[in-house]
């Protein structure tokens, strides 16, 4: 249901000079103002009439939002205004967080990724967000500037429902940080769409694996599932099977089965719930097998 007219509803564009000013404006205009980054979801929802905010508060360029830095001792920080193409082309991301770079490249089209941001993808809290699985698998933590000061929001507890997250009025996410990833590790994002490229996902399976002496099996596997529940989530039962049992094709099959049992999919225009469930099992098994081949050698 797209409005064929290019026009947006009446709105005011607000470009604050500081995070303090932006946050205060959002608080003063509660319910009428929304922070915006690339606008790739915002404009669609405003044109379709789902979002009716009067003020769009442009936070691109505010303190910390425009930088991407890698510290070999601390990890990676990606400012909230950094578009996905800059993330996936960044040499330190390609070298150390290749799963994140690969996930970015599955989003829509090249020209859209010049505007779309990872933090925007996360804050929309879509169950289908393509970059969310990689961000969760790498242990991403959001830096949030709010009325009460600066705080950290781990992704593990950030998502509250479709389109709902842990942010309060006046909160502005300035960056996402990731710890140093295990070396070596292997990751895979399997995206099932209605076409090979550019579509929203029917099912998204993210898998990350590495050697881990603390695990009984000697390996840790992270499995994050998207588009199959109200929020993207870690398939903990599947992870536990592969932490405790020797990793074989049999235990991988068992873990994939456990992933399928954990989903709560819906029927929608892209797929039936039943098809989603079976594809979670199949894609999880395939992703686990692929990363296992790489991580064991």
């Amino acid at each position, binding site marked *: 249901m797209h409005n064929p007219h*290019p*026009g947006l509803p009446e709105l005011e*564009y607000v470009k604050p000079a500081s995070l303090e000013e932006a946050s205060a404006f959002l608080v003063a205009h509660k319910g009428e103002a929304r922070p915006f980054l690339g606008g790739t979801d915002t404009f669609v929802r405003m044109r379709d009439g789902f979002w009716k905010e009067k003020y769009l508060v442009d936070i691109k360029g505010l303190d910390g939002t425009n930088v991407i830095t890698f510290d070999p001792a601390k990890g990676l920080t990606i400012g909230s205004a950094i578009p996905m193409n800059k993330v996936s082309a960044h040499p330190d991301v390609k070298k150390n967080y290749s799963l994140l770079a690969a996930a970015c490249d599955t989003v829509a*089209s090249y*020209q859209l990724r010049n505007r779309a941001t990872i933090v925007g993808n996360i804050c929309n809290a879509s169950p289908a967000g393509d970059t969310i699985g990689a961000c969760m698998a790498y242990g991403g933590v959001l830096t949030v500037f709010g009325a009460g000061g600066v705080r950290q929001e781990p992704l593990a507890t950030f998502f509250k429902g479709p389109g709902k997250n842990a942010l309060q009025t006046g909160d502005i996410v300035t960056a996402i940080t990731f710890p140093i990833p295990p070396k070596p590790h292997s990751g895979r994002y399997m995206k099932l769409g209605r076409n090979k*490229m*550019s579509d929203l996902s029917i099912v998204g399976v993210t898998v990350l694996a590495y050697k881990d002496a603390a695990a009984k099996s000697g390996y840790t596997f992270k499995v994050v599932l998207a588009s199959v529940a109200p929020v993207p989530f870690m398939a903990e039962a599947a992870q536990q099977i592969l932490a405790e049992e020797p990793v074989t094709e049999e235990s991988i099959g068992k873990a994939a089965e456990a992933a399928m049992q954990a989903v709560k999919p819906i029927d929608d225009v892209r797929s039936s719930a039943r098809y989603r469930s079976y594809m979670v099992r199949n894609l999880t098994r395939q992703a686990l097998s692929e990363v296992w081949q790489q991580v064991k050698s």
Partner: protein
Amino acid sequence: MSVTRINLTVNGSKEVVDVPSNWTLLQMLREKMALTGTKNGCAAGECGACTVMLNGEPVNSCMVLAVECDGAEVVTVEGLVQDGQMDVLQQTIIDAGGVQCGFCTPGMLISARALLDRNPNPSADEVRAALVGNLCRCTGYIRIVEAVQTAAQASQ
């Protein structure tokens, strides 16, 4: 609703434009500057007919507010012509029969130009991946992909 005066460069020419705050870059180009080569298709960032270069990178101009473009450099399909000479891509897409109705062509050309600027010798798969956000309902894409590769070879 407020109107903001912005300064920007469009196809090499410095412009001063007054834009309402809800106008997109697409609207400003077509309705204020009469640059109607850039097309309005889906208005949802999916079809790519409105693709222009913004500060050297292709974007969907239906997904950018005009007021955000203060100080920016914009190149539209009209700007691909330099001193009366078409871009090599424009000639190869004509020669290959990659234009039928022509509605997607301006956006297709901008995405293809951006690809060749960052990757002067792309494979057919790389061309397809770069043009995934430019939908064509006429050609079946094969001739467009060929045109981009021919232009790449001609520029070597």
